[in-house]
């Protein structure tokens, strides 16, 4: 079960239970309280599969990009070395050696940048996941707030918090039963319908 998820019954119990409202009183009202889909609660967990998928996909892209960067560097180094060997016969060894050295340094720098971009890409993935989890948590919290607001409105309409109304209900029901009994005692043999109830 997703972290923080509550079915409607659990939600109503957590909301009304501490106020002394029994489940028999509010169970009929569950239909007026919307459910928050469990999938949305899953999104509030950074270890959820969806984020793993995100991570894997983004990492795969980064890896691909890094590999492509390295391949380019290697290709560039081979080209540079071939040029350097050709230049050694015509312009001298030093010139060719210098060219090879410059190419190596450039390749090293490009490699470092690619590596740095890869690391930053990995960080950005986690950062995105954190931000997305935060956004989903806010979204779910918003839905829960709306659900509580709706539940309170329903409770008000249903007089669930009106202790006196519930007591009155019982008292009137008892009074009605007593009246009915008295009536039947006084006018025995008459039907209940005749009494109107």
């Amino acid at each position, binding site marked *: 079960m997703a972290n923080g998820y509550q079915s409607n019954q659990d939600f109503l119990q957590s909301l009304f239970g501490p106020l002394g409202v029994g489940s028999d009183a509010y169970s*009929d*009202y569950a*239909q*007026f*309280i*919307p*459910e*928050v*889909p469990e*999938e*949305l609660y899953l*999104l509030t967990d950074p270890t959820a*599969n*969806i984020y793993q*998928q*995100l991570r*894997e*996909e983004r990492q795969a892209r980064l890896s691909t990009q890094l590999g492509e960067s390295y391949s380019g560097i290697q290709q560039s180094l081979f080209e540079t070395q071939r040029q350097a060997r050709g230049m050694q016969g015509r312009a001298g060894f030093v010139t060719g050696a210098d060219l090879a050295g410059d190419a190596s340094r450039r390749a090293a720098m490009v490699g470092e940048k690619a590596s740095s971009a890869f690391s930053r890409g990995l960080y950005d993935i986690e950062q995105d996941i954190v931000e997305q989890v935060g956004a989903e948590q806010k*979204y779910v919290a918003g*839905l829960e707030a*709306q*659900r509580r607001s*709706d539940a309170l*409105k*329903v409770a008000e*309409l*249903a*007089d669930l918090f*009106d202790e006196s*109304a*519930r007591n*009155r*209900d019982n008292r*009137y029901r008892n*009074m*009605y039963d007593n*009246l009915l009994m008295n*009536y039947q005692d006084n006018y025995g043999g008459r039907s209940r*319908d*005749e*009494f*109107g*109830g």
Partner: protein
Amino acid sequence: MSTRTTTTFSPYQQSLLGVSAAKARAITEFSQAQTKTGVTALYEMNEIERAVREINKEVKEEQEKARRRQGKIGIGRLIGSALGFAIGGPAGSAALGTALGGLAGTAAAGGFKRYKVGINKDKLPTGYFYGGERQDLRQRVVDIERAFKQLTKDQRTGIVKNLAMDYLTGRGLGKLGAKEIGTTGQSLDSLLQAGEITKGEYLADIFKSAVGGLSDERVTQLSGIADTINKEAITTSAYANVGVGRDILEKGRETVGLDPSSGLALSDPRVQLGTQDMKVGEFYKPSNVMKDGLFPTVTAQRNLLNATMAEDLAMRDRFGRGSSGMDLYNQLTNPAAPTLVDQKAEDVLDAILGEDFTPDKIDDISFNFNSGVNTNKRNSLFQQTVGPMYG
């Protein structure tokens, strides 16, 4: 590398698509839930308001029915009490008759029916929201039913109280019925028993006695009736005591040219009109006096008194005041009545016309009226009987 890379998503991208779908579903579900809540709440509130309107309408109709029934019950009780009093009154059960009559009238008007409202609780709106309002509504129905039940209970308690009240009222009215009219020794009860007044007249007199007393005119009429009864009773009793039946009297009346049953002169307007049995008070009501004219009335009154007094005197004579009872009877029944009879006629005329008449004045009036002489007295009498004169 595949040539379809642009249309093939990576696993992460596919997962992202799933995430987007989940978010879209969440937004949809939230929206649907809020809409459902709003629509349900609106519908239920409308249902509650509709139920309140229906209950108010039902209660209003039942209240109107109850009000109408209360009116009917009041009238039914009054009629029942009056009938019960009339039926049970003179027989000595006026109180019980009044109470039971009132009860019967109340029952006939639906007084024992239960008040109730036909609100079916099963049809009261149900739902998820507005539990307090729905309970208030249910409580209101219970209150209404309880109020109507209380109304029934109060009405039945009222019926019991009314029963006692009607009994006491009937007893009080019964005492009024038994009260002596003047110094005649007769009461409304005895007059009713004797058949001299109708039950309607009896009830009217009783209720008039209860609310303000009988008018002087009515007391005079009743006194006249009572006197007649007394004389008849004495005569009948006397004849019975001496072993002479009433048939002898009637035969005697016939012999001397009187109406056998009433003893009235054949010239008496009542005999001529075939109203010998008409009560004294009724016959001499101002309306009858006006209709028939004064002097036939005076003559009839005199003849009536002559006859009854003659019987009375004849009876007294038979009991030791002389030996010529029948002669005296004949003398007394002569239109030229003796002083004693005139005195009685004077009393009656005083009662009817409200003036101090003497037999002489009567004769004068009669003479002057018949001869067309306009005198103050005649004018006064004429005005009193037919209205004012002009010119």
